[in-house]
């Protein structure tokens, strides 16, 4: 045996630089944000000095009590939750047949069908939002058709753009691939013989889906839901571009606190609450998913 450098040296040479980078540019900024949430906003935005002239340390719960005392912010969190939930459910409904088709198609077609789902995701995010400005625009065919039909019933014309509808359609559009991929990855592994057996025993197509395919696909459903829900919950660009005045979501309020009102402590509080809620919901989805799998595996099905 020849002499080898100690194992820990290699380990730290390889993992040290990325670890250091992410500590400096991710962990430290995140901790600073936690600290900022306990500070007082500065006179001209930003933060007031940590130690003031009299030597008192400026740490306060003011921004947290503000969040709890002004119902407006809780309402915006709830509204963001609903937008994200509707987005998740619609994505699931659209993604399920698509993922099923890809999983059931012949192997040589699968890569192409899958690529076609991923491709739009790789085009610029803003372009995909902008595309809906064109489609839903007041002069475009869709708005004219919808309002033409509404006029037949004597209804006032409705704007499609700058509305909750526009925000939701685009949220679904942008996040759909995140639902299709985990669903496909799950459905692809299903054992066809289970379904054949159920059919032999007289189960209808609906029963086979509802009693076998769907329960088995739950891990994929939960993974996809987490991948859609979390970014949708914190979105700011889509309501900013396609939404009306009533469609401000929590992401927009955070942006406003940092760039317009310049109340960093309160902005930090909102950001932290968003992070905790998003990660808690993702954790919950993962936990339910694992429990579901455990139950199915231990079941006598």
């Amino acid at each position, binding site marked *: 045996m020849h002499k080898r450098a100690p194992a820990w040296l290699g*380990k730290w040479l*390889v*993992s040290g630089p*990325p*670890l250091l980078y*992410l*500590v400096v*540019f*991710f962990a*430290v*900024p995140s901790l*600073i*944000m936690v600290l900022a949430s306990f500070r007082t906003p500065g006179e001209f935005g930003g*933060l007031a000095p940590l130690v003031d002239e009299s030597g008192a340390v400026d740490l306060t719960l003011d921004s947290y009590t503000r969040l709890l005392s002004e119902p407006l912010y809780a309402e915006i969190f709830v509204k963001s939750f609903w937008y994200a939930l509707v987005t998740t459910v619609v994505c699931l409904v*659209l993604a399920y*047949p*698509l993922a099923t*088709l890809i999983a*059931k198609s012949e192997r040589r077609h699968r*890569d192409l069908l*899958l*690529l*076609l*789902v991923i*491709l*739009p995701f*790789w*085009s*610029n995010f*803003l*372009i*995909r939002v*902008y*595309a*809906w*400005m*064109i*489609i839903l625009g007041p*002069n*475009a*065919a869709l708005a004219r058709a919808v309002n033409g039909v509404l006029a037949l019933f004597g209804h006032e014309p409705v704007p499609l753009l700058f509305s909750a509808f526009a925000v939701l359609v685009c949220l679904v*559009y942008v996040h*759909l691939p995140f639902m299709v991929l985990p669903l496909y*990855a799950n459905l692809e592994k299903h054992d066809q013989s289970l379904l054949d057996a159920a059919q032999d025993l007289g189960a209808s197509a609906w029963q086979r889906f509802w009693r076998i395919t769907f329960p088995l696909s739950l891990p994929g459903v939960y993974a996809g839901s987490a991948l859609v829900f*979390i*970014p949708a*919950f*914190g*979105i*700011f*660009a889509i309501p900013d*571009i396609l939404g009306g005045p009533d469609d401000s979501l929590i*992401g927009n309020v955070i942006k406003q606190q*940092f*760039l317009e009102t310049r109340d*960093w402590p309160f902005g*930090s509080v909102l*950001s932290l609450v*968003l992070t905790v809620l*998003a990660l808690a919901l993702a954790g919950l989805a993962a936990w339910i998913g694992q429990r579901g799998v455990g139950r199915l595996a231990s079941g006598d099905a």
Partner: protein
Amino acid sequence: MRKRSAWLWTAALLAYAFLYLPLVIVVVYSFNDSRLNAEWVGFTLDWYRKLFANEEMLLAAGNSLLIGLVASGVSTVLGTMAGIAMYRYRLRALPILVLTPIAIPEILMGVALLIFFVMLNFTLGLVSVALAHIAFCIGFVAIVVRARMAGMDESLVEAARDCGATPLQAFVHVTLPLIMPGVIAGALMAFTLSIDDFVITFFTAGAGTVTLPLQIYSMIKIAVTPEVNAVSTLLMLLTLMLIVIASKVSPSLLRSD
């Protein structure tokens, strides 16, 4: 069985139409001889001509390219190291630090870095944007490289070491060539993510610095013009090219298994 697949095909076709129609409309209207994005009038290349005469846009494109190259270069090196380390060593902190930036809503990283840079009196601009992009690209490169490591036969490295190769030699002559497709795919991915990023750039760029997505944002906030369609079409073309290259280098990148 036949009826069922006909139903599936219809639903799937609708879903594909939903995914592609918006992008097709942007491309088609970029050649439309009308200011309004409402109906087809006639073919023109005017919007592309206007685009290449728009100095602000060219400056923004130059900035995006520069940031993309720097960010993808640095994040590929760091992300490759992270991917290897995540596969070989048991380190609890590393996967958490690598994957959390990807898992949380983008806006959080944007505002956290904004506070960080401003508190350090670090001038917001090209450098702060590049530093931020590196931070979120590392995770994507690491995931691709880690997957590639999992498909590699580690005994080859052991064999090289037994034959007297130093750890560095074993890495350069055995590990690196084997994971190279993953590294290149990761680099292309990082470049695309950096060129496309809007949210984190929005918070870390400061007032004076413009990238392509920021320029597109300010244009569509004012008015929808076919010039935006033209720049969008070119960006889509660039992305498509990068994906084709990435899939040639690392076919498994586009597969889910």
